[in-house]
């Protein structure tokens, strides 16, 4: 087994030992193009076209209240960085990313390790675990608003029953970091199943002989996890981390439901929404969207470079 840099690119591709087969060029005509045309149209219309427009219009003054539209250079970008609400949202989003990645990857890996060994009812457990992933973010926000409710919420009831609190507490809105952590937990609840499935797939690809060898060598459970399992699931952890990072940097639904428009826990996306559709400052909204996209892509690439290593079992 080897763990190599992604750039090395070894271990895949045609087997050179396989007998060469004479191939006759096929003439499919337009069929391949017809087959991919719907996808090209779909991606072009819903991804590429809006992205190009966003890039262009991020540099335009577009505000129907103060029109007319005109080229603004970097004016929108300097305006958003001067806006204290945007600065607050950037800090908050950093917290969301930190909590979101830690909770999602942590819980996801833990769940995957628990599900690694076959047991009776494993399929049912898997199906139940995936359920939160199927729920819309708004629905989850509503569910958790009842859980966190300071008057009759389940969390307060449980903590009081356990004598961990004397009286019911206000969880959301009182303190910035606590509020962000609790909202990030709601999103982690939603996206952890995906992380768990990604890691579980990687775990199931690890050959059993490696664990047998580790056992023969007298490795403890902790040592086996640290020296065998984690290095081998590193690509999956990288993907799960990037997925959690992207979702956390773009958190909106849960913030909107649980925090309304309070700056206490506002996110970059909720702030973008309010600047664009409430203040009708579309130019700044585009600029903020573009900035969020660039930052998300840059961080995601950094994480992949840092974490991703190709695993080859040959």
């Amino acid at each position: 087994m080897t763990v190599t840099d992604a750039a090395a690119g070894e271990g895949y591709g045609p087997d050179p030992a396989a007998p060469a087969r004479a191939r006759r060029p096929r003439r499919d005509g337009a069929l391949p193009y017809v087959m991919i045309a719907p996808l090209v149209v779909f991606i072009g219309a819903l991804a590429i076209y809006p992205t190009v427009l966003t890039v262009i219009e991020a540099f335009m003054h577009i505000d129907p209240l103060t029109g007319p539209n005109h080229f603004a250079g970097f004016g929108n970008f300097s305006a958003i960085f001067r806006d204290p609400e945007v600065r607050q949202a950037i800090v908050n989003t950093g917290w969301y990313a930190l909590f979101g990645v830690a909770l999602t990857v942590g819980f996801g890996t833990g769940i995957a390790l628990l599900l690694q060994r076959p047991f009776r009812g494993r399929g049912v457990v898997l199906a139940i675990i995936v359920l939160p992933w199927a729920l819309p973010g708004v629905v989850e926000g509503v569910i958790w608003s009842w859980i966190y409710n300071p008057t009759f919420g389940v969390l307060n009831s449980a903590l009081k029953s356990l004598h961990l609190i004397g009286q019911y507490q206000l969880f959301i809105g009182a303190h910035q970091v606590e509020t962000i952590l609790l909202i990030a937990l709601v999103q982690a609840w939603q996206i952890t199943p995906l992380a768990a499935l990604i890691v579980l797939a990687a775990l199931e690809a690890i050959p059993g002989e490696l664990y047998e060898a580790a056992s023969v060598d007298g490795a403890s459970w902790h040592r086996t996890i640290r020296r065998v399992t984690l290095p081998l699931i590193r690509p999956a952890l990288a993907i799960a981390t990037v997925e959690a990072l992207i979702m956390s940097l773009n958190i909106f639904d849960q913030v909107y439901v649980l925090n309304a428009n309070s700056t206490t826990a506002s996110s970059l996306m909720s702030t973008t929404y309010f600047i664009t559709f409430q203040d009708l400052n579309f130019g700044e909204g585009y600029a903020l969207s573009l900035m969020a996209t660039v930052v998300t892509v840059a961080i995601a690439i950094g994480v992949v470079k840092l974490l991703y290593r190709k695993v080859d079992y040959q």
Partner: protein
Amino acid sequence: MLTKPYKHIPEETVPKKASRKAGSTTAVALAATMVVVGWGSSAFAAQNSHFGKKADVTINVAIAYPAPPAKLLDQFTAQTGIKVNYSYIQWDNLQTKIAAAAEAHTYFADVADVDWSKVGEYYATKWFVPLNKYFNVASLQSQYPQLASFVRDGQLLGMPSDVSLLVTTVNTNDLAKAGITTMPTTLMQYSADLNALKSKGVVQHPLDIPFAAAEGLSTYWYELTAAYGGQVLSPSYQPEFTSPNSPGYQAMEWMVSAYKSGLVPKGNLDLEDYPGFTQDEAHNLTASVFSDYSGDVGTIYDVPSDSTVVGDVSYIPTPGVKGIAPNLANPDGIGIPARAKNVNAAVTFIKWYDEAANQAAFAGANGPSEVVSTFPLPANVAGLSDLVNSGKVPGAAELASLAEHHSRAIFPAGAPPWYPAFSNAVYTNLHSAAAGQESVASAIKNIAAQVASLSG
């Protein structure tokens, strides 16, 4: 009064070529466009179906109220030949769709919601067609108590589609338990009664204020400011709340103090207006809402499946510092987006929607089968009269009286174009003050700074 059925007005020519988009399009707008493509195709199909009794023209209506009863809509189609594709869209989502479509210069609907708070914005952006050509503003003023909320510089941007007031409600059963038999008529008495309810243990947190950073918190402050005898902005949109002796300043102090002293449930920091009514007031976790919405007694508190206080909650004249306070108007209206395809048919629909008989029916005059859920009160005097005479809606007479005699526009000159940003400053700062993240003085200063920035 608009009581006669309207004859079908010939359809105006719809341009076949979509005009080139002049400036901006967003991903959201694209999605909105796709929705409209679906609508457009059905409209096209309807316009080309001239056999049988099919409609001559189809209009798309997008309003933040559930659809009128199918029976009434069918009658409208039979009378006018206009088929209605009705979309009930939640208020916030609807505003986003209107803005996205307008900014993308895309057709969205033929009739859409015009909230009182959006009138200044639509005046500035020209996103809605002025209706003066179709309605005589001068002659309607005596008929529509809240028409002023939809007029800006003489332009009628929407027709009132209901009467909605900020009113005070109290749980009379709780007051009786606390030994209070006379309803408060001043703010001082009201405060004393709330403290009595709390100190006597009748209700631990007797007052509902929705402190979530959302629009409902802003309007609560406006109403309380009116009760203190003032208004938040002058007719030229300058702040009138910066002095500690001003009504707006005192109102904010009263609200924050009520929260910190425990008159308001702790959880209300994250509670918006309607959840406050349905969770707190309807389940007797609170005993009064100072700035409630007209119609909530019939549609929330007296609904047995949703409430444990059926028959206990009543409207009272809103107590002010010097006696009865004005009830600020927060009505909904309907108007015609600038890109509407079927303007004449849209006008016909608006007139039908505002007919006194229909308005009274939507509010419950004909019983539950014709009620439009959450519809507060008829927009016009005749509709109010029909509703009161039906005797089927609790509190209707009191509300009609308040609407006719105590109703006042929040901004007499119409909402400023930058109202949403102003309201945002109000509710975020008021929320922060209640959460203890800033003082009332700081909140007031920040809101005033925002007004200066917006109006400058």
